[in-house]
């Protein structure tokens, strides 16, 4: 029987006490999960996307269940950067876990200004740039589907933030490695793979899309193999640390991402089913490492590439 594995990881310069983060948009600003977060099993929280101005988000219906997954079109509902800093950040700091702030916008200047304001606050471990939201009419994903704009927005935000910068990529592209390389060129310290896939469900009685927004982002176990594939491809081609996410529901699922090349993982939709999902996934990963006789997560990162040769 080997010793208890060391679950600490480093993601592009961010030291995390555990390998499992709570994904942006699935853990709010931490308030609803206070108890879970206080138990110390979580590697960190990536807070719901913050924009320069507050946003009410899209009208209902905003979510619909799909086979082993769900579509959402929340529309970046959030309190805005100033209220976030004033009212939400003090609580988050009190949780004593790494805080990563996800930033979204509609023009490069929005992103830069929001990032600048957040970055100057104390107690922020990292910034995650959301250039992959499929649910707003302009901005969001449009920066994430072409290498030129992706590199430019990364470079501009990189210039104003002190903390490590993660860029969360959209899978709705022809070749995700091209975008990953572009944001690396722009100065990203890590990439988060992946945001949701654009999807649609039609209500055949009403003969219109179920979601008021028409399209939404697909998440959950349904997308897991697609997400693992993206991690695999980027890991093979681009030398940049990866945060892997997409439908992780247990420790074994998480290890697929690690073996494909991710340095850390995040749970998102899984938390909707079980507020303790992050802790359960962490425990499952520890169990896997113990059985494998591995002492750290790091020694498992990307080893499926070696085995595949």
């Amino acid at each position: 029987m080997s010793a208890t594995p060391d679950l600490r990881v480093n993601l592009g310069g961010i030291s995390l006490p555990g390998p499992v983060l709570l994904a942006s948009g699935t853990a709010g600003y931490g308030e609803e999960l206070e108890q879970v977060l206080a138990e110390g099993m979580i590697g960190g929280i990536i807070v719901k996307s913050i924009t320069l101005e507050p946003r009410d988000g899209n009208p209902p219906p905003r979510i619909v269940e799909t086979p082993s997954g769900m579509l959402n079109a929340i529309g970046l509902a959030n309190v805005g950067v100033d209220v976030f800093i004033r009212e939400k950040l003090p609580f988050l700091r009190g949780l004593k876990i790494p805080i990563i702030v996800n930033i979204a916008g509609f023009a490069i200047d929005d992103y830069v200004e929001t990032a600048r304001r957040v970055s100057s606050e104390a107690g922020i471990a990292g910034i995650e740039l959301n250039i992959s939201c499929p649910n707003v009419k302009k901005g969001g994903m449009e920066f994430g589907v072409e290498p030129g704009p992706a590199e430019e927005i990364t470079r501009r935000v990189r210039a104003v933030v002190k903390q490590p910068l993660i860029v969360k990529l959209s899978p709705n592209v022809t070749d995700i490695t091209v975008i990953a390389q572009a944001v690396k060129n722009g100065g990203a310290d890590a990439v988060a793979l992946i945001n949701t896939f654009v999807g649609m469900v039609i209500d055949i009685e009403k003969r219109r899309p179920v979601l008021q927004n028409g399209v939404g982002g697909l998440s959950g176990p349904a997308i897991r193999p697609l997400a693992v594939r993206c991690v695999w491809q980027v890991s093979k081609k681009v030398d940049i640390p990866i945060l892997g996410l997409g439908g992780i529901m247990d420790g074994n699922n998480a290890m697929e991402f690690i073996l494909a090349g991710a340095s850390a993982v995040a749970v998102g939709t899984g938390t909707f089913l079980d507020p303790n999902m992050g802790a359960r996934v962490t425990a499952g990963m520890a169990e896997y490492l113990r059985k494998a006789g591995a002492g750290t997560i790091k020694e498992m990162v990307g080893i499926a590439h070696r085995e595949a040769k």
Partner: protein
Amino acid sequence: MKEVVPQTETGKIVRKTALPVGEYFETVIDAPVAAGKARPGQFVHIRLRGNSDPLLRRPFSIAGAENGKLTILFKKVGRMTAEFAEMKDGAELDVLGPLGHGYDLTRKTGNAFLVAGGYGIAPLLFLARAIREKKLAPKIILIEGARTAAHLVWADKAQAESAWLEFIAATEDGTAGKKGNAVEALAEAMKGKEGDSQMFACGPMGMLGAMHKRWPGVPFQCAVENQMGCGMGLCQGCILPLVPKAGQPLYTRICHDGPVYDGNAIDWDKCPK
């Protein structure tokens, strides 16, 4: 601060009974954590063990809670409830709750009118008992509206409490009680007593909105029915538009801020039909 902390537990079906209507099931679940804290108007979010499809939990209004056991009432409407309906007594389920805010039980009036649309009666007998215990109103009247006599869920249960609870049925086809809907039955029952009454309701949006519009001056608490994602306020999927107010967001999260609302706070015209 939050009054409930989300907590999951393994519940066990004690007894599941198909009601005469056929598609309704009264289910008693052994779930001490949820049952110990449950209040009328709150809900439990249930997942059938071992399934990643259907993925999400389903919310069920708590219809009773005693001795570590919860009662819920559900209707077979989709895949999850179809599976639920087939489960045997003794089977285990994954229960999260109690969630949301229940009815506020502080106001005293001469009359308390409780209005159920169909199986919206689920939380209202539980509520009626709490109103009686807290002596909020000397007269408690429960009105249930349904399509036909056969759809009057739990009318028998309500009638069994006739010593302290007045029960009025309304059916659209006139096969039982008054012919018409629950709101019309309420209008007749509450006539002349509006100034000394409060209304509680659970049912479809159309019924709730109609009650608010007809009696804007009568205190009104309603539990709304809606599909939900997480049930904990995380996904922001279940929302309702509020009457616009400065400094307040446009939408409220039903699972987190509701499911019981002051009927005057909701922008009924903007609710999805």
